[in-house]
């Protein structure tokens, strides 16, 4: 079976992100998965990759990946594509993942499919990716006609599957070319999300909108999220007002989430917001305006004041937890 390359997402100390396990599960449908590890931490991460079926782990332990934007990873993958001729390359559909995929497509003259929510082997064994379009109202099945199929898979779309793999380490000598060092990362700032799950990985997301009224009012969203073990999301209005940091924005220009349960509290449900949450399995909305468009996509809605409804809901959850 042909090799399928999976670009591993991980922290600097080697913690493998869940989306990488999802990519490995998808890769197994297309061939034999090999992970590609950029930067340090592979010693700590390799066990996790082995538990999810990686047969090989190509390790390029270079500081260039953390120092420059997107281009070094694309360069590494392009050289692996040239030497290994894999059946496909799977990359996490994060913002940077998509950029790496795009650059790799240019370098290798290959077709790239972004925002995939599923991938299977077609009749000829080549990948067929499902992509939601127009904010989720249409599902398109796409194929790649040229080069090596490059697929950026949305986090939380495919379930990880534990299965043993050899995870043989294959060190790769890599130093980025001058061209790949054009964009320098000077400094990084990351916001704390505490004990809460990652927004794109969470099973439950509780999002608050302008209806929360203030940064202080928004705290009720955090309390509700914590009572459900959920991630916190926010509408753009909340982020623009400075009530909550931008990386929690859900929507067209924020994160796309697809949890089992999405609670929209005090959010009107503008099309740009719906574009980021419409594929959630179950949607619950709390809004005082019966005409709010969020109710059009909600499985369950309550027309009411969130400052009355949410505290009561918190009480009920507390009671049920015993």
């Amino acid at each position, binding site marked *: 079976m042909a090799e399928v390359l999976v670009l591993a997402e991980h922290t600097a100390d080697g913690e493998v992100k869940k989306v990488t396990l999802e990519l490995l599960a998808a890769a197994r449908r297309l061939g034999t998965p090999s992970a590609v590890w950029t930067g340090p931490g592979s010693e700590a991460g390799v066990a996790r990759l082995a538990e999810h079926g990686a047969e090989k782990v190509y390790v390029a332990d270079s500081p260039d990946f953390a120092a420059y934007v997107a281009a070094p990873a694309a360069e590494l993958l392009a050289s692996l594509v040239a030497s290994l001729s894999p059946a496909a390359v799977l990359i996490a559909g994060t913002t940077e993942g998509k950029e790496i995929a795009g650059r790799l497509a240019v370098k290798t003259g*290959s077709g790239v499919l972004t925002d995939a929510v599923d991938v299977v082997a077609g009749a000829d064994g080549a990948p067929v990716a499902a992509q939601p379009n127009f904010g989720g109202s249409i599902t398109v099945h796409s194929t790649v006609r040229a080069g090596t199929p490059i697929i950026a898979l949305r986090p939380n779309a495919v379930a990880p599957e534990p299965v043993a793999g050899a995870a043989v380490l294959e060190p790769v000598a890599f130093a980025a070319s001058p061209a790949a060092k054009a964009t320098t990362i000077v400094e990084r700032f990351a916001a704390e999300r505490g004990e809460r799950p990652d927004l794109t990985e969470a099973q439950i997301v509780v999002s608050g909108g302008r209806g929360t009224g203030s940064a202080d009012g928004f705290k009720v969203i955090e309390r509700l999220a914590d009572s459900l073990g959920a991630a916190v999301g926010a509408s753009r209005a909340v982020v623009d007002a400075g009530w909550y940091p931008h990386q929690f924005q859900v929507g067209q220009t924020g994160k796309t989430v697809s949890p089992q349960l999405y609670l929209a509290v005090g959010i009107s449900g503008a099309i740009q917001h719906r574009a980021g949450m419409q594929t959630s399995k179950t949607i619950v909305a709390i809004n005082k305006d019966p005409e709010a468009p969020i109710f059009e996509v909600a499985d369950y809605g309550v027309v009411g004041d969130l400052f009355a409804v949410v505290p009561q809901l918190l009480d009920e959850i507390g009671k049920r937890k015993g």
Partner: protein
Amino acid sequence: MTTLNIVVCVKQVPDTAVERTLTPEGTLDRESPDGLINELDEYAIEEGLKIAEAHGGEVTILSMGPAKAADSVRKALSMGADKAVHVLDDGLAGSDALATSAALAAALTRVGFDLVILGSESTDARTGVVPAMLAERLGVPQLTLAATVEVSGAGVTIHRLTEDGYAVVTGSLPAVVSVVEKINEPRYPTFKGIMAAKKKPVRTLTLADLAVDTGAVGLAGAATGIADWAARPPRTAGVVVKDEGDGGSQVAGFLAERKFI
């Protein structure tokens, strides 16, 4: 003062507020719904104008699209851009991101640039890969997902939005920049601007002008293809209850029934 040659890429897209559909071939039906400037590109135009105002320079709009895209080009000019280039060729219809970036890169090489500014994503294709592809093709820094842009001397520094925060990222000119909607508040065209736009030069370039191989673009040259598509079953109309003092309990009941609590 140096004069910056700023090119802003603007795409015409169907209005997101109306029903959008695909042709039987699986390409976007660009004829039926009304075309508008891709929202994020308005922020790109605004940023281009601001940088030109602050540093001295000229803003050129670059758009690839059917004849109708001229409306968006004109609107961009009415916001204050100086001139425009419209890449117009029947052979481009159905181009995917790879082909689009090839045509745009050819046009950019032809017109020259110090700074290319794009929206970070189009509402129709939503690939979000064209800016990175352009940087790759042009061999210039990729300053994408910018919430702030600062041009100084020969360099550009941005606050790049990341998955968990932001990063300060820098590169030299010429460069490709893409912006997010947090960056500014796009201006509205003034009456004077609308009148002035009518006289601003719009140059049309064909694939032959750009020496782009027709086999590499359009539906025929697309590196990706659509096997089939289907409308997702519309979300079944859910239950909506009015809070009569028991709204929280009602939600709890629903969540319990679905085993979330």
